[in-house]
C-alpha cells in the first residue's frame, strides 16, 4: 500500500475519532441539561398543588406554600421592568440610531459589554452602598429593583439595539423622506417594526433578573415575612432567595417543599423565556424583509 493511501486512511480515522470526541462533548452538555430538567421536574412535580402555590409558608417554612414568595418575585420583577425598560430601550435606540462613530460611542459599547460581566454580588454591594445606604431607601423592593435595573440594563440595551438593526434602513429613509422627524420615524415606524425583538429580549433579560439571588440578598430580600409587602419601601420574599434559605439555612425541610420551590422558579423562568423565544421566531417568519 502506498504511503499516500495510508496517510489518507489515517486522516479519515482521525476524523471519525474526533467526530466521536466532539460528539461526546455535546452528549455531555445535553446530558447535563436533561439531568437538570429531569431532576427538577421529577422531584418538583409531587410538591406542586394549588395549595402549595396559593398558601403561606407555615411551621418555620417546613410546611404550607409559597404564595407570598411568588408575589414578592413578581412585584420585584415588575418594578424592575418599569425602571429598566425605558432606560434600556432608549439606550438601545441611542446605539442603533443616534450614536456617532466616535470614541465616546466606542467607550459606551465597552462599558455595556463590561457591565454584562460584572459579578452579580458586586451589583449587590453597589446597590447596598448607593441605594440602601447613601440614598437611604433602606433594604426594600425599590432598592433591589434599582440594583437589578443596573444588572439587567446591558441585556436590554444589547437586545434592543440588535432588534433595531434588523430593520432595513429603507424604512427609516422612507419615513424621513415623507417629512417625518428623526424621532417620529423611530417612534412610528422603526420601533413598531422592531417590537417583537425588543419585547422578547426584554422578557429574557427580566427572567434572568428574576432568578438572581446575590444582589437581592444584600439589598432587601427577607428570610421570612409574615405579610406581603405593602409598598416599594417594604422588604419582600423572593423565590431564588427562598430556595437558598430552604436548601441551606433551615434544617429538616420536607424535600417536596424545596423541590417544589425549585420547580416553580425554573418553570417560571424557562417557560416565560421559551414563550418569548417562540413568539419572536413566529413574528420573524411573518415579516420577511
Amino acid at each position: 500500500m502506498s504511503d499516500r493511501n495510508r496517510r489518507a486512511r489515517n486522516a479519515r480515522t482521525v476524523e471519525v475519532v474526533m467526530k466521536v470526541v466532539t460528539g461526546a462533548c455535546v452528549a455531555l452538555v445535553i446530558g447535563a441539561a436533561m439531568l437538570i430538567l429531569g431532576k427538577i421536574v421529577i422531584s418538583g412535580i409531587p410538591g406542586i398543588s394549588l395549595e402549595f402555590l396559593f398558601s403561606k409558608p407555615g411551621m418555620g417554612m417546613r410546611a404550607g406554600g409559597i404564595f407570598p414568595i411568588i408575589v414578592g418575585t413578581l412585584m420585584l420583577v415588575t418594578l424592575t421592568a418599569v425602571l429598566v425598560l425605558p432606560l434600556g430601550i432608549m439606550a438601545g435606540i441611542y446605539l442603533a440610531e443616534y450614536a456617532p462613530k466616535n470614541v465616546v460611542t466606542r467607550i459606551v459599547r465597552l462599558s455595556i459589554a463590561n457591565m454584562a460581566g460584572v459579578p452579580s454580588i458586586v451589583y449587590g454591594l453597589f446597590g447596598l452602598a448607593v441605594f440602601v445606604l447613601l440614598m437611604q431607601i433602606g433594604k426594600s423592593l425599590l432598592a433591589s429593583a434599582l440594583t437589578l435595573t443596573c444588572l439587567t440594563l446591558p441585556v436590554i440595551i444589547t437586545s434592543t439595539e440588535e432588534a433595531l438593526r434588523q430593520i432595513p434602513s429603507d424604512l427609516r429613509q422612507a419615513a424621513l423622506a415623507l417629512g417625518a422627524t428623526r424621532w417620529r420615524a423611530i417612534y412610528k415606524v422603526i420601533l413598531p417594526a422592531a417590537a417583537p425583538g425588543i419585547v422578547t429580549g426584554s422578557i429574557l433579560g427580566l427572567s434572568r433578573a428574576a432568578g438572581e439571588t446575590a444582589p437581592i440578598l444584600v439589598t432587601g430580600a427577607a428570610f421570612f415575612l409574615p405579610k406581603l409587602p405593602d409598598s416599594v419601601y417594604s422588604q419582600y420574599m423572593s423565590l431564588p432567595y427562598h430556595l437558598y434559605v430552604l436548601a441551606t439555612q433551615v434544617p429538616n425541610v420536607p424535600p417536596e417543599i424545596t423541590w417544589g420551590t425549585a420547580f416553580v422558579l425554573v418553570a417560571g423562568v424557562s417557560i416565560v423565556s421559551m414563550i418569548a423565544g417562540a413568539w419572536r421566531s413566529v413574528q420573524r417568519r411573518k415579516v420577511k424583509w
Partner: protein
Amino acid sequence: MVMSAVLEEVTAEAPFALSEPVRVDADRAEKVSGSFSLKDVSVAYGNETVIAGVNMLVPSRAVTALIGPSGCGKSTLLRCLNRMNDEIGNVRVGGTIALDGLDIYQKSIDPVDLRMRVGQVFQRPNPFPMSIYDNVAFGPRTQGVRKRDELDAIIEAALKDAALWDEVKNHLKKHAFELSGGQQQRLCIARALATKPEVLLMDEPASALDPISTQQIEDTIAELKDMVTIVIVTHNMQQAARISDQTAFMLRESMDQPAHLVEVGETKRMFTNPDDKRTESYITGRFG
C-alpha cells in the same frame, strides 16, 4: 403668465448657461411651482468629491430624467434635492440648490419641511410594516391631519393618483406586505403623494419590477406630471425616452475626477441629435 416668461424669470435668478431652454406647455404655466435651479452643485463624501459643477434647471410639472453610468452620482444628486444626504453623515454639498427661488440649504430651512414638499420613491419598494391605509396616512398624520374623513379623502385621492385605488379600495386594512412588488411600489408612490409634494424624486423606481409593473409605473408617471414635478433616475434608455421631457446625462470620466453634467436638454433632441459625442455613445449603448 406664459411659460417663456417664467423660464426667463427663473433663468434670470440663476445666471448660468443652460444648454437649452425647455419648452413646457403654456397652459400649465400658471400652476408653476416646484422647480429647481442648481448652480455649481458639488457633493463630497468625506474627502472624495464625487460630483462637481452641476448647473441645471428642473422645470416645474415636467419629468426630468437623470441618466449616466453606474456610480456617476445620480442617486447622490437626487438626494441633494430633498436633503436626504444630510442623514448619511460626512456628506458636504456645495453650490446652491433653489426650490422656487428659495435656497434649500440655507440655515433657516428645516430639511423636515423641505421633505414634505419634495417626496421620494426608492429603488426597492419599501412600504412600512403596517396596513395600506396607515402607510398612505403616514405623511398627512405627520403634518398634523387627524380628522378621519379628511384622511380618508387624502388617501383615496393619493391612491387614485398612483393608480392603485381600484385594486385596494376594498382592503385598505390589509397589511402592505401582502401586495405584489409592483403594487407595493405604487403604494410607495401614493404614500409620497399623500403629503401633497410639489416635486417627486424617483430613484430607479421600476428596476426591481417585472415588465408589466414597470409599464404601470410608467403610466402612473405620465398621469402625475400634470400635478408634480418629477425627477427620475433610470438606467433604461427607452424608459427615459418614453417618459421624460428633459434629460440630463452625467458622467464620471475617471475615478480620480468628480462626475459632471455632460449635457442636459429636451429629451427628444437628446435622443435624436445629442450635442456631445459621449452622450451619443452612452445612449446607443457603447459604454456604461
